[in-house]
């Protein structure tokens, strides 16, 4: 009886524990969507990317990545110039991901038009002050619309696709050589899998057995011109990554337990690639009306803007 009771209590605790991390991720995801929508209503913007990736970001920043506390000022400094000999200490956005430490993880955002999604994530996870977003896309600010390495949460300039994954591979190789236990995380978008460099990077990681790197791909099936299937078909993406030598998993990118399980897959002497299949209008039904042209939301007229305001009201309630 005592044993049974104890088992039952453990089970309850475990369910409770499970629910609490899921709820926490749901809270973060909802916050990401709401904040990005708020800004989109005022300025237009990259809204569908937040909808497809909110769960991925919530899991990475909320549960999975081992990051130190933010070392950045809660209100970011303005852009202090690009790195150069005469500007020896420019701000790096990586300080918002915590200190560099052999035992801590590193995060690399490749498609940096997801910057607003990342800023919102940093706010939801206590790494950035809420009012920081007042600086978003404002002249002279470091919270640029398309992030660069000075932008909070960023370590590289990823705007030219396919480049960040190679840099992260180099970082991972060096960290392994140094004996670091911390991992290297890369957020990729599916569109940039059209870049040859992405495949060069995967091939080289497999060849050099780089196994401290974990790549999550937001497979939202979208790019600027429309559906990836219509612009330049990527499928079969799973087979491609597998045959290039990555340990590849694919899951519903909005299913938090499934996504978590995939991200926690052990992957021996290979890089891990998790294909997170997502919907670009998840949690934002109104976006569906624009499908498949979702890359950047720009309102045609005021009634359309008003309909998004109503969507915000619904999210807030």
């Amino acid at each position, binding site marked *: 009886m005592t044993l049974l009771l104890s088992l039952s209590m453990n089970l309850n605790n475990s369910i409770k524990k499970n629910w609490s991390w899921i709820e926490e991720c749901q809270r973060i995801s909802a916050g990401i969507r709401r904040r990005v929508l708020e800004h989109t209503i005022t300025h237009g913007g990259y809204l569908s990317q937040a909808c497809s990736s909110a769960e991925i970001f919530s899991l990475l920043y909320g549960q999975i990545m081992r990051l130190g506390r933010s070392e950045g000022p809660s209100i970011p400094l303005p852009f202090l110039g*690009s*790195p*150069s*000999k005469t500007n020896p200490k420019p701000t790096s956005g990586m300080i918002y991901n915590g200190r560099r430490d052999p035992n801590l993880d590193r995060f690399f955002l490749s498609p940096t038009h997801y910057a607003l999604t990342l800023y919102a994530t940093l706010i939801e996870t206590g790494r950035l002050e809420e009012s920081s977003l007042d600086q978003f896309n404002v002249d002279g600010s470091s919270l640029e619309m398309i992030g660069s*390495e000075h932008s909070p949460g960023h*370590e*590289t*300039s990823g*705007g*030219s696709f*396919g*480049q*960040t*994954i*190679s*840099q*992260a*591979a*180099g*970082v*991972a*190789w*060096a*960290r392994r*050589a*140094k004996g670091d236990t911390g991992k290297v995380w890369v957020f990729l978008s599916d569109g940039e899998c059209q870049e*040859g*460099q992405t495949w*060069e*990077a995967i*091939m*080289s990681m497999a*060849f*050099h057995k780089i196994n401290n790197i974990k790549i999550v791909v937001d497979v939202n099936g979208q790019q600027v011109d429309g559906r990836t299937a219509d612009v330049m078909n990527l499928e079969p993406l799973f087979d491609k990554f597998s045959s290039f030598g990555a340990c590849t998993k694919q899951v519903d990118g909005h299913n938090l337990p499934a996504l978590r399980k995939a991200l926690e897959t052990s992957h021996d002497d290979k890089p891990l690639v998790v294909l997170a299949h997502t919907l670009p209008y998840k949690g934002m039904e109104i976006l569906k009306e624009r499908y498949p042209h979702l890359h950047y939301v720009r309102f045609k007229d005021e009634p359309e803007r008003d309909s998004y305001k109503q969507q915000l009201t619904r999210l807030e309630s």
Partner: protein
Amino acid sequence: MELIKRVHANNIVKWGKTHSDVIVLSGDLTSSCEVDGFRDAFPDRFLSMGLMEQNMMGFAAGLAREGLTPMVHTFAVFMYRRALDQIEMSIAYPNLPVKIFGFLPGVTTPGGASHQAINDIAVMRSLPNMTVIETADATDVESVLELSNAVDGPVYIRMVRGEIPRLFPAKNQTILGKARILSLGSDITLLTSGICTEESLRVTDILKDRGIGVQHLHVTTLKPFDDHRVSEALAKARYGIITMENHTSIGGLGSCVAEMIAKFGIATKLIKVAINDTYLQGASRTFLMERYGIDVKALLSAIESLVGEKIDISDADLTTSRQDSFFNENQQEAL
């Protein structure tokens, strides 16, 4: 003239012994870029990157972010042309200390337009944060590791390889930003770089005998280009200035000098002995230098044009330059 083989090959192994931060990356051209010895001596610090130059540049940037000193080796064209965006966004923008060793400048390969780096100086010089170096002889090549190590940022090094001359005393290492003064004179100021320095030396002594004073400077650092020795030499040329380079006439040494002339308001003529805004073809170095007007004869005609008279120099007067035939051992390497 002393000729030495595989200077970089020996030098980088020596360097590697005392610099454990150095990682050599190669794009499937390991012995062609003289890093096979490094690969064999330090297999854990050698990265075979295959034929993926874009990834190689980014990978090197990642290594540099972790405090290592990546030295990337392949033919120059496959980096400054094929992977320019990667060099810019992954390396130059963050000012990372990646050392880029670009081989086969201009006419030094019979590999044709696809292999000949004819506008690399122009391109690389235009990148913020990039330091640009061009080697000409064994002493230059022996100096580049020390020299580039002193730069806390990316460095592009235009490399000569194989059998190369020793033009400058080994003990007088090349210094960043400092041109070598090879002769003094006030009629003409001549600035040469890379293999054109060796070529120009075929005639400079004879000019002295003919009463033409040439202030001759050998330039290794193309960026930054702010050496006071150069600006002073430019200001005192009586007839004018000549630049001579194994590069197109746009954006290379000649353009560096033109910018400096303008900056200091020097009222004088400039003749660029350079590849005249054209692609080359696959052929021997000697043939290409003559065909594309960067040989000693082209230099002589530039001098005659400045002084306004014919100079009495016959072909026999010109000291014999190295004649690299198409099929000798060194050239075969290039293919």
